């Protein structure tokens, strides 16, 4: 399994001491972000715990393919995302497999992405929403769309970093984000309506 950020895997010489030092200095400070990412992907505390633990143990095992001075957070997020796809997605409690395919088909057509897409939602209405409502709207998105929003808006990764984490071209990052945000607006709109914020 490859966990390196680049195509060519560079193996670095790490003494045992250096392995522990790099692990503690470069990897451990990101554990809260990693935990939140895991929780937002799996939407289950036990799964998030297992996913974070598996990811950190893999990161330690493959530490020689981490190049010091490069972005450790992006490197870790990439391992976590791959572990999620390989080990957790199958048993994920998310009942949206069919919905997801439908959404992908709809949103992947050029027409859909180029159509002027307006959701009747006002900034003031969004301002009134509390964190739980925003979180629920986010959680209602299919996981691939949820992921790009988490990486960009919550974790602040650049498009280039997201492209590496997700193994997709930057153009796809851009268009997936665009689609994800349109979907999110629809979800937020239904929350705002149900709360009466849009009247």
């Amino acid at each position, binding site marked *: 399994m490859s966990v390196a950020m680049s195509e060519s895997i560079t193996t670095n010489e790490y003494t045992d001491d250096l392995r522990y030092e790099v692990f503690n200095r470069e990897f451990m400070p990101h554990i809260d972000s990693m935990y939140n990412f895991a929780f937002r992907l799996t939407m289950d505390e036990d799964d998030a715990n297992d996913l974070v633990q598996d990811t950190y143990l893999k990161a330690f095992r493959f530490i020689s393919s981490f190049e010091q001075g490069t972005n450790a957070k992006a490197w870790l997020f990439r391992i976590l995302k791959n572990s999620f796809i390989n080990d957790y997605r199958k048993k994920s409690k998310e009942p949206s497999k069919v919905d997801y395919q439908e959404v992908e088909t709809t949103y992947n057509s050029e027409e859909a992405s180029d159509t002027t897409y307006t959701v009747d939602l006002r*900034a003031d209405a969004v301002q009134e929403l509390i964190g739980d409502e925003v979180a629920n709207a986010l959680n209602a998105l299919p996981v691939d769309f949820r992921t790009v929003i988490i990486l960009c808006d919550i974790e602040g990764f650049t498009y280039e970093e997201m492209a590496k984490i997700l193994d997709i071209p930057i153009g796809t990052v851009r268009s997936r984000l665009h689609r994800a945000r349109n979907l999110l607006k629809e979800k937020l709109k239904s929350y705002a309506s149900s709360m009466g914020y849009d009247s």
Partner: protein
Amino acid sequence: MNASSHTPSVTEEAQKQTMKHSCEHHAECMKIIQSILDDEATEAEKDHFRENMDKCLPCIEAYRLEKCIKESLSLKLVKKPCPQSIMDTILSKVNS
């Protein structure tokens, strides 16, 4: 309150008249707004934004909405700390 304070000034009137109420390339503008807010805009996109964004009502509203959603996501969502027990397990397995 003085009724005259509600009367729009000449400059406000002029601004209203030049303000666009529909955008003929809104889909394209939405992509630029996204790039600007994500700090990923090219120089050409920044130029387009600077030149047009104060003249087009749908784009101004779209910018406000996108900005507000982005800020809500980064500021309102609860960030949980990783449970100490998980950190302890990781460190003990790594050190064993």
